[in-house]
């Protein structure tokens, strides 16, 4: 009987670039920037890395295919390097590869790095969705974009829970306002400006009911993690290392989109993935045990649904927690203490590792007094790819 990987792997170094419209650098520069920080943080040299995983979600825009872009950029000494891609959860997938490789006993020290250079498309938003989902979907999927795919969930969520459009939009605006307040304080965030609920509600509509500030930015960036056998961590600079408690991922079976039992108001895979992750990590009551969240707030409605699907807010009641400030930086479970995708933007391959970067730094209590959560010991990242009707959700729980 498999027992999971709890506490077998430690994170000993992380790096994250400044996220934003990095017109003057390419994906190679971003990878070098994130890697060097992680290497310095771990106190290692490049030759210590035994195997690496590269995550890039839309390589056709800039990075390219295969793992060669990473081994070339870092001049890795002909070690095993694997490229992974799993939509917007690609960064977490790179981490899963590195962590599992260490947990399996195949290697002692591995690298996971995620990168995306989105601002080479020439237009706002992500590249065309139907065309990146295979030749058949190109013919039968609607003319859908990422905000539209999630906006549909808002229509079903509001309808199911009897929330009036204006009331719903206000709750969503409060979620974004909270993230902007946090992101404004993070030097590596892309969008560093506090905005009011009123400004958010008045912003132009991108996909109804979501306005401009309900949507995360589109950015360039990279993030990296170096992981090792937990029992080795004491040999490095981390006597009390951050350890991986669980990594789980759940993918849609087509049931949401093709079978008629899903009501459209929540994300089934998140519920399934979270349940398994809590089991693996030994979390009995997430609302009491988890100290911080980094969720995949590609859109405000995604964050609202995640509060419930992660089992932290009761179904249909997340708006009460939002209004109570439960997820604020000074609340019971701060969510997006770094500003989230909302403020960092979403370089697809990097986001999952960027979330973990914040959890890691918060757990090590080194983010500075403005944003530091008091004595956190367990953090969770929620990294989602696809649309609510067709998606995958990756959950990582890390703790001391």
């Amino acid at each position, binding site marked *: 009987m498999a027992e999971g990987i709890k506490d077998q792997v430690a994170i000993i170094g992380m790096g994250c670039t400044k996220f934003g419209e990095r017109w003057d650098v390419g994906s190679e520069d971003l990878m070098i920037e994130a890697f060097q920080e992680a290497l310095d943080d771990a106190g290692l040299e490049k030759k210590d890395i035994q195997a690496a995983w590269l995550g890039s979600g839309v390589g056709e825009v800039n990075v390219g295919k295969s793992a060669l872009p990473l081994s070339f950029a870092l001049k890795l000494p002909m070690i095993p390097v694997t490229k992974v891609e799993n939509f917007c959860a690609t960064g977490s997938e790179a981490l899963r590869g590195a962590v599992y490789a260490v947990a399996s006993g195949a290697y002692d020290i591995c690298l996971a790095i995620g990168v995306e250079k989105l601002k080479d498309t020439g237009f706002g938003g992500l590249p065309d969705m139907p065309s990146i989902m295979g030749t058949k979907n190109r*013919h039968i999927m609607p*003319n859908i974009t990422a905000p539209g795919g999630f906006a549909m969930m808002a229509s*079903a969520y509001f309808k199911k829970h009897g929330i009036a459009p204006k009331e719903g939009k206000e709750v969503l605006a409060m979620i974004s306002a909270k993230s902007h307040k946090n992101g404004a304080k993070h030097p590596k965030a892309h969008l560093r400006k506090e905005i009011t609920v009123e400004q958010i509600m008045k912003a132009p509509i991108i*996909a109804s009911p979501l306005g401009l500030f309900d949507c995360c930015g589109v950015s360039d960036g990279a993030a990296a993690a170096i992981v090792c056998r937990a029992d080795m961590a004491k040999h490095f600079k981390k006597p009390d290392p951050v350890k991986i408690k669980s990594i789980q991922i759940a993918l849609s079976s*087509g049931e949401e989109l093709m*079978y008629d039992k899903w009501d*459209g108001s929540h994300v089934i895979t998140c519920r399934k993935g979270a349940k398994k992750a809590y089991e693996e990590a030994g979390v009995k009551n997430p609302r009491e045990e988890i100290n911080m969240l980094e969720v995949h707030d590609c859109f405000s409605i995604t964050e609202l649904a995640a509060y419930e699907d992660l089992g932290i807010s009761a179904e249909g009641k997340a708006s009460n927690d939002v209004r109570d400030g439960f997820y604020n930086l000074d609340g019971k479970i701060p969510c997006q203490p770094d500003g989230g995708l909302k403020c960092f933007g979403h370089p697809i391959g990097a986001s999952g590792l960027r979330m973990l970067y914040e959890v890691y730094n918060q757990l090590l209590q080194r983010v500075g007094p403005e944003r530091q959560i008091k004595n956190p010991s367990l953090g969770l990242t929620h990294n989602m790819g696809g649309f609510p009707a067709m998606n995958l959700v990756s959950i990582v729980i890390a703790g001391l």
Partner: protein
Amino acid sequence: MVGIVSYGAYIPKYRIDRKIIYKAIGWLNPATYLPGEKAVANFDEDSITMAVAAGIDCLSDIELDSIDSMFFATTTSPYKERLGAQIISTAFNLRDDIRTADFTDSPKAATTAMLSAIDAVKAGNTDKSLVCASDCRKVKPGGSQEQLFGEGAGSVLIGKEGSIANLVDSYSVSYDFTDHWRSEDDKFDRQWEDRFIRDAGYKKFIGEAISGVLKKCNLEPKDIAKVCYPSLYAGDHKSIARNLGFTPEQLQDSMVANVGYTGTGNSLMLLVAAFEDANPGDKIIVASFGSGSDALLFEVTEEINNIKGKRKGIKKHLELKRDLDNYAKMISFRNILPVEKGIRGEKIPFSALTEMWRSRKSILGLCGSKCKACGTIQFPIQRVCVNPDCGAVDKMEDCQLSNKKGTVLMFTGDNLAFTPNPPQVYCTLDFEGGGRSWFDMTDVDLENVSVGMSVEMSFRRKYLDEAFGVHGYFWKAIPSTE
């Protein structure tokens, strides 16, 4: 007797008041103004999609497997080479072992197609033959064609049993008359002088054809309940009937005032309109115009009473309308006015034609699968059942969804996606009786969309890949027209 066993029609929902056109561009040719409104195809409609819509109306209660030939008549097929009739037949899920053909190059093609279908049935080579006719014409801004022409489609099913109107006889005249023409590389029609078209062609040919069929049948104009033919010139439309000896009441309304002259689809649309008011025993003449004229004389049977009220036809489609208050929108829909699409809009993903081929039943035919083990209906066609409690493999049968109503589960209006008619509205919907998927919505205003609303499916152009010359078709959801 061979005759028409079913009929259908389609008029696109958009109507533009001709004053709006005249206000925008009437300064160019001040004599072009016509009263009334005209029907304008949405940006995602063309002669093929409208032919499908008319055919759906015609086939609403017809056993599809009984059809063994399908003819499409148009002068504006989106493809110079690729059989329009076969795209249409695939959309209807007609059998593969049937005969299909396009009749084209003159608006007369509709009646010629109908006569060919009648001949095929008479000869015993085919039991039922479907004819769909439509046009979606690009016209130069500021000309009289822009005022006159409207869009629409008509459809008839030819057969022997259960005919609602038997063909008594027909008479054709054919001439190489170049009233208008379009050479291989022309985007727009060219047209000779109106006086020539009117006096040497329009009035003459229609008159010849109608008097020819009357003579063949030994009938007088007074024996005819309704005479139908296109109106290219309002005054002459009336005078043709008068000169032949018909009273104004016998002349079928031309629909120029509320739809426009619809080209190849026109004669079938006028015939459908005449059937809607016909009684058993009525004799109806329909004549076309273009490189001559075909006149067909039908006698209505008792069966007409069984079809009335079961087709949207002309009457219901005239009621189903939305105002188009914008001339620029009208000409951008026809790709006459190039608009800024942005890089996102310009970047049309490559279409694998191999995929279009192997998935044609799902894409063009909107066929899903019904699991024989658990009954779950699923789209697109699947091999492994999606029901998590079933999962049966290869226990599927095809299940057509295009004729099913649906209910909106979730929706949005998207301003980020490029569409020629923003916002891009789309939804996830549940089909009545089972099956769920997501679809673009069209012919709808976002403010009228809600969770739980009733929708139906409409065959539309999904994309136009100008670099590769591919018109991609699929189905979209439209508000229920019931």
